[in-house]
């Protein structure tokens, strides 16, 4: 068990190292282009050479990578060309905002999808099942770029009950959080619901559920004690992996609602070639994704006694 966790964490670190190298290579392989991006397209060759010499860009690539990684680990991401300040000054508040958004989304997605999934999978083929299944397919078919305008149209302009932007100009406001959360929940819950449903439906057909029923247990106990424990192992993994999708959805949603989050920051940085912000944002995104995956794997082994005790 401990060995398993150790191995999982080890491979997580390995993935992070490779990812960081890839990001570094993609963005900083040629020092000249870095200088151009930092100093702007109208800088002179001389300016760039001075900048490169000052910032150690004349050193060989491996050396630069190691130094870059070291800086990264201590939280020194460099300076944003657009905000003219340390990247970390811009980044952390943005990450915090996104955390709020993601937490709100997950807090809704997890209970909604698990409950609906279990209800649907409990009696496969029933009316409840078909309604929930079709509904979850329909909602996952509406991408964030479509649901955002549609929901905004209904709630902001037709009903006029919610604000159309979520930039928190007058400080944090729950009302501004509603629309972005709604967009993310709508798109994300369907997938988890369907996974839960499939898992539950499969468990309900197993022989051990038959054993439990024929043992004369009340139906409620069969579901709660025998089915749920097994049926929720798979969705647990899916929920954790959903964080990866959420990080994608966050970019669109934040951009649409002018939410000052980290997804919007990454997009702005990409459009403005704000190189150090891009690096920091992608590293954080991958770190979160890989981290949750490791947590989900470890959690899976913990939930599944077959693996835990072997």
């Amino acid at each position: 068990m401990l060995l398993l966790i150790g191995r999982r964490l080890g491979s997580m670190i390995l993935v992070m190292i490779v990812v960081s190298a890839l990001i570094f290579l993609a963005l900083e392989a040629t020092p000249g282009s870095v200088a151009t991006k930092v100093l702007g397209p109208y800088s002179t060759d001389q300016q760039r050479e001075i900048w490169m010499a000052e910032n150690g860009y004349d050193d060989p690539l491996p050396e630069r990578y190691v130094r870059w990684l070291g800086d990264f680990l201590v939280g020194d991401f460099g300076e944003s060309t657009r905000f003219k300040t340390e990247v970390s000054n811009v980044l952390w508040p943005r990450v915090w905002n996104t955390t709020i958004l993601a937490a709100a989304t997950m807090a809704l997605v997890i209970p909604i999808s698990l409950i609906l999934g279990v209800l649907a999978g409990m009696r496969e083929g029933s009316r409840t099942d078909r309604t929930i299944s079709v509904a979850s397919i329909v909602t996952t078919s509406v991408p964030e770029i479509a649901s955002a305008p549609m929901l905004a149209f209904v709630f902001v302009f037709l009903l006029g009950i919610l604000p159309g932007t979520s930039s928190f100009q007058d400080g944090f406001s729950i009302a501004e959080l509603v629309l972005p959360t709604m967009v993310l929940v709508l798109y994300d819950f369907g997938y988890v619901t369907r996974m839960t449903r499939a898992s539950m439906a499969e468990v309900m057909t197993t022989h051990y559920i038959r054993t439990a029923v024929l043992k004369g247990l009340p139906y409620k106990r069969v579901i709660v004690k025998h089915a749920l424990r097994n049926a929720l192992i798979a969705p647990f993994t899916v929920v954790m992996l959903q964080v990866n999708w959420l990080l994608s959805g966050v970019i669109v949603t934040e951009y649409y609602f002018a939410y000052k989050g980290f997804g919007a920051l990454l997009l702005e940085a990409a459009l403005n070639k704000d190189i150090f912000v891009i690096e920091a944002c992608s590293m954080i995104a991958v770190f979160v994704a890989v981290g949750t995956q490791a947590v989900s794997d470890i959690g899976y082994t913990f939930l599944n006694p077959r693996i835990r005790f072997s």
Partner: protein
Amino acid sequence: MTETTLPMPKQPNILARLFKPVLLIRESLVGMIGLALVVFWVLIAIFAPALAPFPPNANLMSTQPPGAEFIASATQMIGMQPASELCNAIEGDPTKVDCGTFWLGTDLTGRDIFSRIIWGARQVLIFAPLATFVAYIVGIPMGLWAGYSRGRIDTVFSFISNVILSFPVLVLYVLVINLIGASAFNIVAAVVFASAPGIFRIVRGLAMDLRAREYVFAAETRGEPLAYILFLEILPNARGPLIVDAMLRLGYVIITIGTLGFLGLGLPPPDPDWGKMIAEGRTFLQVFPWIPLFPCLAISSAVLGFNLLADGLREVSLRD
């Protein structure tokens, strides 16, 4: 052996066999609705030139409400042609022409939204299937090889796919497009790069399951070459789940292409792109809601079609 010639049996109708799975989808209501949506959009994409009343980029500078008849000055240009060549002359007024109806209104630059959605369908239904197809071409052989051979090849391929999959999808697109620039080819390339690892994983899982079948074992005892075992013994038996996956993936690629267009990382202007239409129209949501909402409906219904079709196929394939 004796020389008695055994009679050759008649070959059953191949066409009937090929169409049987297609006919099976009839048994799933959900699948039929999906199929209808998909066929609807495919027909629109194919007959776009005939169906669209206006050239997609024709600029008639108007803010007409939806459904209004449009009377334009005969000298105005639609695309590269004078309006008078596309529209009907109005009796009694030689300076004006009747251009028909803008069924879904126009956008702020006077382009017919109806026509742009129709042309947008063509755009999306060329690039999404193309990108998905290429991703399968890449993912299938690698997945088969890794799942069948296991060992080191599997370790290496799996690690590569894990690395790529550890990027949140859109972050990956933003990075890749940022690196190689937005063009039709690059977008297809980015989609392939981001989707192939997922396909690899699925195929690998199927191959690991199928490699233990006795018919694969039998092929091995005959000393069949690797390619034969992978592509003729294993792959045909994985096709069911792969077709379902392909439909889901197609829907997702449509979303991706739309999202990239929406974020300004998609195809360069001015060709119509549903995502870009939403992005351009969203500022007028309050005043002219049809400008962003119709493309929203278009992309959602197309994706819904593929998703419902996938669900129907899965339902049908699980039976008997």
